[in-house]
């Protein structure tokens, strides 16, 4: 116990900390500028100077550690004098343009000067003039206002890990530069914006549109973008989200946000949002009343059911919708329509991979705490770049490296390149072999732990020795043994598995090998997750083989439980998955489809086939917030409320359940309410007053979500398995078949997963559009040279399914045998060109075996 006295108040401390932290813990305010709780201590601004007895001069309390018996004074005339002097210096070059500056009202400099003075300046020299810099798409810099606290550079380098900005020049000429916007420099996270104490670095999105004190509400909600589920605070004025800010101390992201979370909120009030129901008459959409539209949907779905049977109807749920929406949707499909034909785009990889992993390790195996990554001593990354798919999770890996942890990657991970990873870069088709070799070597080094016999029997079969594999992969034996040694020596390892593994050739077998590695080193598995509620959509039973609570439908006792709760009889057989649905629609077996918050035409492989299949349906209803490619094919389009306009919950990749809150008002209905209304028209009443009562039902019927309440979720007490029962004992044979033979040689099409977009929502966000406006073709410079393609040239990329014309961008991070295109922008999505086979084990599409040709069709614009 350490006892110190601050301003005559005795404070007892359990552990060592700085004088500043001790003071704050006791509610004593010490002014600061350069100090920020998220950042490394700096001691630069000198405003936190305090008097300490027996120390000769004033001390910076932010860097001074407490000692027992220390006596500190924080507010004396002498200290105030010094602070006034420091502020006078800071104001020499400050423009004092508070009436015009957006920061006024929440400016730390303004507050300090207001408290300590000076009221006038003794400096008569001319002030430094720097014009406001608007070159950046989302950030405005005004370096006249900068006080050189370096919070932004410490954030960028020490926490975000982007190192995109630095103090340039020296002394009075110092300023912060550059927001370079290269692929792996500025990540547009805007975390510099949140730590800037003055108006030097601010968001352009709300520029001059409101004052901080005009914010009516600060609404805490969960980010709608990726599976990390960051807490964010929406600041609202006049029913418009003016700004999104992070919350320090929030469990997932602790004050950090990425570009999508911070700048991607404008889709909520977008002018292209659907507002009224639309009914297609003679090929043209006409506006309709809710009564008409819902009546028509109920009638047509009912007819389809009665005429063709329940099996002729299918529903697609949404990983962007809340748990409540998805629960009601699957209940509607199962109870009202009587079919298990329900699935979502989680089938693109996440669902199959998770089921595979859970079959080996048990339910909840992927539900590991994201912030725990930074405390691991070793992180193995396989299958993609976590820093772009799940940026905030990526930060934890960077933090792990900074804390001395070892980062191991299979393949090149550009977002971790400055974090001294140990990379093994086999050829694209040799990854399987390499993983086999790692498994074999780990077994010989560490032996089999003996705790999972089923898995060990499969592991024993794997056999590949280092010398041979090194030769085949073109690697040095030494780098491989170093890599394997690091893995074998890991104490608290984590294995991060990305989509490039899950959607690859032999993905089922590769995932088995990744699981084997994780088992042998006793690692925690993190399965990267694209969408905010991808886990929730599965946990809510929006899968052809799952009931709510992630209960397999094939078990009669689970079916019985829900039959009792829902007072119905459930079809025993598993339904069609999303790919079967498209095939069944194409063959004419499926007659009607209900799509909620999803865009299968764009988000499933091979758009031509999907379009043809959907056009064959007798009836298609699409419920969405925008007129998507799929909605255009619909007979009825129902406008739903978006993420920002409704209450509910999301379940993130850790399986943490978090609240989504209404931020702005809008006329219309939540997805679940529309579904319930349709159900009511079909004489199956669903009584829900609000999202809370939907959730209440979930907690009553789902053994996993038992007894949870919104209040508990708000407190953050929602870590898996909550208070419920995870599934135990339901296991199947672990499959290790390889599936298809992987084609060698030639050029293949791949998916570019940019940091700034996620597709459906992000392409409707003007700010993200400014950062990354359009699709490009990323190509390795060497490959480009052989095709005589220069940077910026317009190229046509073609597959057996179709072609796209795009500008080429030379990217040294790209593999030589792959060209990458994103799946974000309308009419220029890569998935549409990929007629993919499905992996027989995971059931996810194999997306790395699509041969592509690239030809130059136009010169770069100069």
């Amino acid at each position: 116990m350490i006892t110190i006295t601050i301003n005559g108040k005795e404070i007892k401390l359990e552990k060592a900390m700085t004088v500043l932290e001790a003071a704050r813990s006791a509610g004593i305010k010490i002014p600061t500028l350069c100090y920020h709780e998220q950042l490394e201590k700096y001691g630069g601004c000198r405003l936190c100077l305090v008097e300490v007895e027996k120390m000769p001069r004033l001390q910076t309390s932010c860097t001074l550690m407490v000692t027992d018996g220390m006596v500190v004074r924080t507010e004396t005339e002498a200290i105030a004098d010094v602070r006034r002097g420091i502020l006078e210096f800071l104001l020499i070059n400050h423009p004092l343009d508070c009436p015009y500056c957006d920061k006024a009202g929440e400016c730390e400099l303004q507050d300090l000067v207001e408290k300590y003075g000076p009221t006038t300046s003794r400096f008569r020299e001319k002030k430094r003039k720097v014009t406001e810099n608007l070159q950046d798409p989302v950030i405005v810099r005004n370096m006249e206002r900068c006080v050189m606290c370096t919070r932004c550079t410490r954030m960028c380098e020490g926490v975000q890990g982007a190192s995109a900005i630095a103090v340039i020049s020296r002394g009075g000429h110092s300023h912060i530069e550059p927001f370079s916007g290269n692929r792996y420099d500025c990540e547009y996270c805007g975390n510099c914006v949140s730590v800037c104490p003055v108006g030097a670095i601010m968001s352009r999105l709300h520029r001059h549109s409101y004052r901080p004190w005009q914010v009516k509400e600060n609404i805490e909600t969960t980010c709608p973008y990726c599976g990390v589920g960051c807490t964010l605070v929406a600041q609202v004025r006049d029913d418009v989200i003016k700004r999104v800010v992070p919350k320090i101390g929030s469990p997932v992201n602790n004050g950090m946000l990425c570009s999508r979370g911070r700048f991607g909120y404008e889709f909520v009030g977008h002018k292209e949002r659907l507002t009224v129901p639309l009914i297609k008459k003679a090929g043209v959409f006409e506006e309709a009343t809710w009564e008409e539209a819902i009546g028509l949907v109920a009638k047509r779905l009912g007819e389809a059911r009665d005429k063709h049977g329940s099996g002729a109807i299918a529903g697609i749920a949404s990983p962007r919708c809340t748990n409540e929406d998805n629960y009601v949707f699957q209940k509607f499909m199962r109870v009202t329509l009587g079919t298990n034909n329900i699935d979502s785009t989680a089938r693109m990889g996440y669902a199959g991979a998770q089921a595979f992993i859970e079959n080996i390790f048990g339910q909840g195996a992927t539900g590991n705490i994201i912030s725990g990554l930074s405390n691991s001593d070793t992180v193995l990354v396989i299958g993609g770049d976590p820093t772009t798919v799940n940026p905030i999770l990526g930060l934890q890996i960077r933090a792990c490296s900074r804390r001395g942890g070892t980062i191991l990657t299979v393949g090149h991970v550009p977002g971790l390149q400055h974090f001294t990873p140990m990379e093994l870069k086999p050829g694209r088709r040799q990854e399987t072999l390499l993983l086999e070799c790692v498994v074999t070597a780990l077994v010989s080094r560490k032996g089999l732990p003996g705790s999972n016999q089923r898995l060990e029997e499969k592991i024993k079969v794997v056999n590949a020795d280092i010398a041979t594999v090194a030769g085949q992969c073109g690697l040095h034996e030494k780098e491989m043994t170093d890599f394997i040694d690091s893995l074998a020596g890991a104490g608290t390892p984590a294995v991060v598995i990305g989509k490039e593994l899950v959607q690859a050739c032999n993905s089922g077998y590769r995932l088995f090998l990744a699981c084997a590695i994780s088992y042998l080193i006793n690692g925690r598995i993190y399965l990267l997750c694209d969408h905010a509620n991808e886990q929730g959509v599965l946990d809510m039973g929006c899968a052809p083989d799952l009931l709510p609570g992630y209960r397999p439908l094939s078990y009669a006792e689970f079916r019985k439980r829900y039959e009792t709760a829902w007072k119905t009889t459930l079809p025993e057989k598993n339904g069609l998955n999303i790919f079967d649905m498209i095939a069944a629609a194409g063959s004419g077996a499926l007659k009607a489809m209900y799509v909620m918050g999803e865009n299968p035409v764009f988000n499933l492989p091979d758009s031509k086939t999907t379009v043809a299949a959907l056009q064959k349906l007798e009836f298609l209803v699409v419920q969405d917030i925008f007129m998507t490619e799929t909605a255009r094919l619909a007979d009825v389009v129902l406008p739903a409320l978006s993420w920002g306009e409704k209450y509910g919950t999301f379940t993130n990749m850790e399986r943490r359940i978090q609240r989504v809150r209404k931020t702005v008002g809008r006329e219309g209905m939540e997805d679940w309410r529309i579904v319930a209304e349709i159900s009511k028209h079909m004489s199956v009443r669903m009584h829900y007053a609000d999202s809370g009562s939907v959730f209440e039902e979930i907690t009553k019927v789902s053994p996993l979500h038992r007894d949870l309440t919104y209040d508990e979720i708000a407190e953050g007490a929602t870590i898996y398995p909550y208070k419920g029962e995870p599934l135990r004992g339901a296991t199947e044979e672990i499959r290790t078949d390889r599936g298809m033979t992987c084609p060698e040689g030639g050029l293949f099409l791949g998916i570019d997963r940019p940091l700034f977009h996620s597709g459906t929502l992000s392409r409707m966000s003007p700010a993200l559009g400014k950062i990354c406006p359009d699709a490009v073709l990323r190509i390795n410079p060497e490959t480009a040279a052989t095709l005589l393609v220069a940077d910026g040239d317009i190229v046509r990329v073609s597959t057996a399914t179709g072609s796209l014309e795009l500008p080429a961008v030379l990217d040294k991070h790209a593999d030589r045998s792959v060209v990458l295109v994103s799946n974000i922008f309308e009419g220029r999505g890569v998935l549409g060109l990929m007629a993919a086979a499905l992996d027989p084990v995971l059931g996810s599409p194999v997306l790395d075996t699509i041969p592509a040709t690239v030809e130059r069709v136009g010169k770069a614009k100069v």
Partner: protein
Amino acid sequence: MITFSQTTIKEIEEIRRKYPTSRAALLPALYVAQREFGWLSPEAYTAVSDLLGVPEAIARGVGTFYAMYRNKPLGRHVVQLCTNVSCMILGAERLVDFLKNKYGLEPGGTTADGRFSLVIMECIGACGTAPAMLVNDDFYENLTEKYIDEILEKYR
């Protein structure tokens, strides 16, 4: 796009090996780049940061902090003349005027033909033999107007 010559790449890689981290090798590497390209242009920073694997912002921050890196293009030969106390007492200021009048060389400026740039220095440690100057890396002391003429003649 500017690129390093193969010899320079080798030299920088050699430098890199002497230091525990890439960032530690930044100062000497930037110095090599400056020698190679004449000054540290934005492209030079890119080249160095690519070669060392150091973020460009960090390279720029370092290169703009230290006075001996040139962040704007200079003439073919850089004259660095000291005007600190000893040199001043022994007539360095007259030499500044001399350079201005005879060669059109202003402090901080470059001659019209791009042959010389003049940088005024604060003490180059030659007080005993003042006034003194550097031309590129060559050191000259006990300067007079006539001697300067002779020296500059050597640099075309």
